[in-house]
């Protein structure tokens, strides 16, 4: 079953790297957001540290939305989604594979935009990079988990990208707030991190426990 999930993720990631479709859009979008923010605020170092958590999570959220809008795009052609559902693996495994592919692409973008953000905003917090990446990664687990489910749900809708954003933003608000507070805690000398991390983990567990089951129910006809 793990092999099946891996193969679905491989198909999405390798296919995307080959076509340079989703990843390049996500990266282009993330860089544009950061450049616009930098030009708009021109923050000094102190202000930049205060802005960085929100900036990072806003960029992550918008970039994730770009990726989620295309997560089932490959399945649009020639009934490929139906083909997935006819596989002799539980539907939860199919969901896991789709989520994993999306997660890997999003993590890759985060890995690239974090140093770029720090350079653009002149934030000298390089020693905190592993901790910030860890928090971003932790939040991205839940964000992409719920997002993949909602992407499957809105797959056939005419204005699916708008619908996806409308559903994802309120449902992931608690996770995003926890993520922003946890990064802020890392960047400040006397910052509080642990309770926000615990909340992030709880939201991840809830989203990731619920979504494979909900996917199976969602695709039943």
């Amino acid at each position, binding site marked *: *079953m793990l*092999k*099946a999930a*891996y*193969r*679905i993720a491989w*198909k999405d990631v390798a*296919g995307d790297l*080959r*076509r340079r479709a989703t990843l390049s859009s996500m990266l282009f979008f993330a860089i544009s957001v950061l450049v616009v923010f930098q030009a708009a605020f021109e923050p000094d170092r102190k202000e930049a540290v205060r802005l960085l958590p929100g900036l990072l999570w806003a960029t992550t959220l918008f970039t994730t939305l770009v990726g989620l809008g295309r997560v089932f795009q*490959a399945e649009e*052609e*020639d*009934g*490929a989604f*139906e*083909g*997935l*559902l*006819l*596989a*002799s*693996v*539980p539907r939860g495994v199919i969901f896991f594979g789709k989520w994993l592919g999306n997660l890997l692409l999003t993590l890759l973008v985060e890995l690239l935009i974090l140093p770029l953000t720090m350079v653009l905003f002149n934030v000298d917090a390089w020693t905190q990079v592993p901790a910030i990446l860890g928090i971003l990664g932790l939040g991205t687990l839940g964000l992409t988990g719920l997002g993949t489910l909602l992407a499957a749900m809105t797959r056939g809708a005419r204005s699916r990208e708008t619908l996806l954003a409308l559903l994802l933003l309120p449902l992931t608000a608690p996770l995003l707030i926890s993520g922003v507070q946890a990064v802020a805690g890392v960047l400040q000398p006397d910052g509080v991190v642990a309770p926000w991390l615990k909340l992030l983990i709880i939201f991840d567990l809830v989203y990731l426990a619920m979504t494979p089951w909900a996917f199976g129910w969602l695709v*039943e*006809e």
Partner: protein
Amino acid sequence: MVRLEGLQHRFGQQKILQGINLEVHRGECVVLYGANGSGKSTLLALLSTRLTIRVGHYFLDDIDVNRYGDMARDRLLFVGHHTHLYGHLTPVENLLFFADLRGLDLSESRLRQAIDAVGLSRSADKPVQWFSAGMRKRLALARMLLAEPLLLLLDEPYSALDAQGVGWLNAMLNRYLESGGAVIMASHDPERVAALPHRPHHLARGQLSSMALPGESEPC
């Protein structure tokens, strides 16, 4: 091997299938004829587990498919109007994807053998997006050689195939039936099906009835 008891299906208020009963044994091919919209594709979608059975029973190899859909999917293969192929992948990669999702541990040479058997060896490493409809159909049918299912469900299998492709498909289906596999096929093409030993059935107003083969008297 396949047993359908009182299968019914409706879309909204519209009844599509009403009390379908059918038995298909090993080595048998049942062909479903009927006008457009008579429910042939719906019946195949139910048998493939793509649609959920709400009323009636469906047993495949003594497995209650309503309850154990995952197990049943392991034993059947559905090739419909869509080929379920990914355009950005090559035939080898598409078959590898299919094999992994089905839990088959196959070497690349085995995959290439199947591609060769359907006459696509020269295009084995080209993305499928450049393939014609007939080539895509052949590749979809190559899955059958890898999966060796107990039950093969085919929806208009001859569409998009040229004369050579039809001959090749019928030869492959004959070998498959001789090896003990069962086929349920929807078709509008009795001439092409004639090369296969089969039992024709007619689907009309949601009901299935057996038909006589050409040269046979009508069944009682």
